[in-house]
């Protein structure tokens, strides 16, 4: 084991600084993006629903996010007396930490990535599995029946959809021959994977919706049934963290879709980072549009769709992709 001094000696301040900047940039970027998304979503929904949305605080209502943040931070930080306190406090942190960690492997542009892991995709799947704990434990520790049902639904739903999410990506991995996200982007120079892997794309988008617990898969927090589901007992910034976690999740799934299926940063004329952010923005808008348009599935329908439709489809996709690669490489 090298000592701390030895490690520090190896670290060159000159190389460390830009990396730290990237880390800081991604962290601040992801968080403020998520905060901004709460505003964007409300305005976009309002636009599609023939109403105004938040337009009072600041120019175009832009300061609404600030107002909301101040409100959440100044609310009483209340833990119900019947809750399992340590778990209740940790749960929202688990959600937001695990989603933020996933951002570490997203290549924003050539060279702008926190951790260029060669098992990037596996790391990502592992992190998204961890965030299930946050939701399930949050529902469990609140010791309330609505939260419990919501938490259990969340656990069942996210564990199931993880399977298809992983499988749907195997086609991309097979075509690239690598789990590294940078490699995957570079492998799309000729044709974006959304064309050969269109089945994978659709499955991944559906699984992504389910992972982020958005309509039509928002069963864990279904308002008309479970009040607020797994976070029914949360208030103040603890609730804010679940809330933020959801939007970080949306940004993450959108960014991932861009990286895996839409050529990441590649695009003519404009700088790569602009292309990347632009594509991600379009996908985020798509996510919000889905929320404006669809009703919610029932639990058994959700499971049936997952295990009886998506699982065979994604397996077939893996098999066909594999066969095609074999046939072409022969």
């Amino acid at each position: 084991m090298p000592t701390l001094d030895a490690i520090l000696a190896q670290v060159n301040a000159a190389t460390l600084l830009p990396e730290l900047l990237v880390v800081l940039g991604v962290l601040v970027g992801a968080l403020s993006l998520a905060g901004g998304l709460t505003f964007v979503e409300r305005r976009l929904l309002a636009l599609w629903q023939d109403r105004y949305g938040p337009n009072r605080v600041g120019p175009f209502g832009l300061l609404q996010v600030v107002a909301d943040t101040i409100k959440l931070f100044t609310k009483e930080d209340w833990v119900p007396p019947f809750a399992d306190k340590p778990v209740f406090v940790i749960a929202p942190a688990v959600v937001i930490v695990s989603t933020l960690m996933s951002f570490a492997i997203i290549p924003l542009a050539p060279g702008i990535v926190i951790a260029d892991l060669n098992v990037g995709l596996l790391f990502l799947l592992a992190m998204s599995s961890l965030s299930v704990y946050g939701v399930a434990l949050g529902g469990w520790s609140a010791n309330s029946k609505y939260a419990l049902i919501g938490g259990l639904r969340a656990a069942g739903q996210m564990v199931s959809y993880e399977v298809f999410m992983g499988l749907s990506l195997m086609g991309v991995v097979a075509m690239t021959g690598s789990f590294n996200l940078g490699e995957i982007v570079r492998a799309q120079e000729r044709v974006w994977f959304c064309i050969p892997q269109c089945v994978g794309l659709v499955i991944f988008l559906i699984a992504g919706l389910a992972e982020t617990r958005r309509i039509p898969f928002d069963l864990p927090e279904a308002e008309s049934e479970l009040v607020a589901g797994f976070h029914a007992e949360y208030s103040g910034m603890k609730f804010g963290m679940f809330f933020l976690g959801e939007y970080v999740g949306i940004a993450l799934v959108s960014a991932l879709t861009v990286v895996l299926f839409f050529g990441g940063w590649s695009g003519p004329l404009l700088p790569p980072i602009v292309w990347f952010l632009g594509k991600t923005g379009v996908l985020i808008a798509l996510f919000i549009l889905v929320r404006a348009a669809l009703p919610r599935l029932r639990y058994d329908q959700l499971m049936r769709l997952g295990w009886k439709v998506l699982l065979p489809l994604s397996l077939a996709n893996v098999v066909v992709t594999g066969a095609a690669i074999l046939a072409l490489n022969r």
Partner: protein
Amino acid sequence: MADATTVLEGRLGADGLAVQPTCDGVPTVWVAPTRVKDVLRRLKTDPDSPYPLLHDLWAVDERHRQHDEGLPPRDFTVVYDLASADRCAELRIKAPLKGHAPALDSVTDVWPSANWYEREAWDMFGVRFIGHPGLRRILMPPWWEGHPLRKDHPARATEMGRFELPDPLQAAMAQSLEFRPEEWGLERSGEDFDYLFLNFGPHHPGTHGVLRVILQLDGQEIVDCVPEIGFHHRGAEKMAERQTWHTYIPYTDRVDYLGGVLNNLPYVMAVERLAGLEVPERAEVIRIMLCELFRINSHLVFLGTFAQDVGMMSPVFYLFNDRERLLDIVEAITGARMHPGWFRIGGVAQDLPAGWDELVGDFVGYLPARLEEYESAILANRIFRARTRGVGVITAQEALDWGATGPFLRGSGVAWDLRKQRPYGGYEQFEFEVPTGANGDCYDRLWVHVEEMRQSLRIVEQCRRAMPGGPYKSDHPLAAPPRREQALQDIETLIHHFLSVSWGPVIPPGEAAVCVEAAKGHNRYHLISDGDTLPYRARIRTPSFAHLQILPQLSRGAMIPDLAAILGSLDYVLADVDR
């Protein structure tokens, strides 16, 4: 009419005590309380002309009556309103009861729907029903003392003495809130597991108001459920007993608060029957037009909130926007939006304003295209269909047994619409169809609502095209308040106007009930006049009360999300349930 009662007398034989003449033409027969259950059972299953539907069951405290010549001696009366959907026939059976703790055989084993009605009669009048499976209070809290609709029960807080909540009472109240499944007729555990009990409401976003549903769950599946009502009880029937015939009109608006003037209509029509006055043609058509506008209003809210119940976020905004346009028209005509209180005894409050036909015409031209859009966005959505088809199914037979009416019953395929089968208030002059579903599930109930909006638009358009001229209110002396233009002519009419406004008109003794096809089903006002300036008893039969009682039947074996869909499809308003 006379024939019907003679036939009835023949069939009832010795059981019938007396036949009572009423102003509404519904055959009314007094039956000895000991025989009433047999008679009702026979009437329900009569081979020639059965009355399979228990429309209403209610009681009257008769101890203060001045005018009841020729009727059996009694302290309380229990009234059974029976109906037949096939023949669109009505029949009223009355049982006279003596003493201060009256009792009567329960008819819950003849009609399951009698359950809540009998509980209400117990709660409000202290009439005990022998053999009732769970005779406890339904609208009042369990610790309430007395029976509110009895004549000796105070009607106002100022008559009741100071409110005090000593510690023991507070403790008792808190204790009464503790949940013990046995008290609700629910098992605690199955063979080798315990059930999960979930308290759904009274403040839950999915219940559309203050409704509490106790769910007995096995996982996410509903084993049984018990709806608890009464949180929205305001004593509308008690209020009637101290408002003049005229000043009670605005209270009726608040009963089904989405129905607006649809609530005024049965009330003012019942008073008009008692007073024996005719309504001018123009007033009739104005009334129908507004009623149909309010039916659309109610259905728009229904459709939007239903979509929200199954998780669709957007429709409710579109539909409320359309409702806003409609309420603008209502505002232009009546001056108010949700609660116009605009119908009057003998007509309506004012004539239509200049330019009303353009407003109405615009709306009639605007809505159909929107409805098509909603149909393709909501009803045609595959997830939506999966969530609503085959959910909350009820057969026509069961629905009739439970006293269902309106779009709910039509969703199960029974084309019973009073506007068509027994037109009232001028509906006979309009062309429209009665849409019916086939499967009796949530989807069919919803579809019926959408189709009814189209039919209502047709009626509104016909009203607009053929609005007759003439006065908007009757010249009859009992029309209240008298038309003002005439009141300013000479001192006699001025005095008359003054009396009519300050004391209110004196309506001759008698009783009359008018049942109308309200937005949610049959809404009936049964008024008993004792020759005074205020009603002796006003009974309000609301569709929501009957429909909500069916909830356990519909949701057993369903999942929690289905409960949201079923509750949405019942189209109830809690104010309409509790009154």
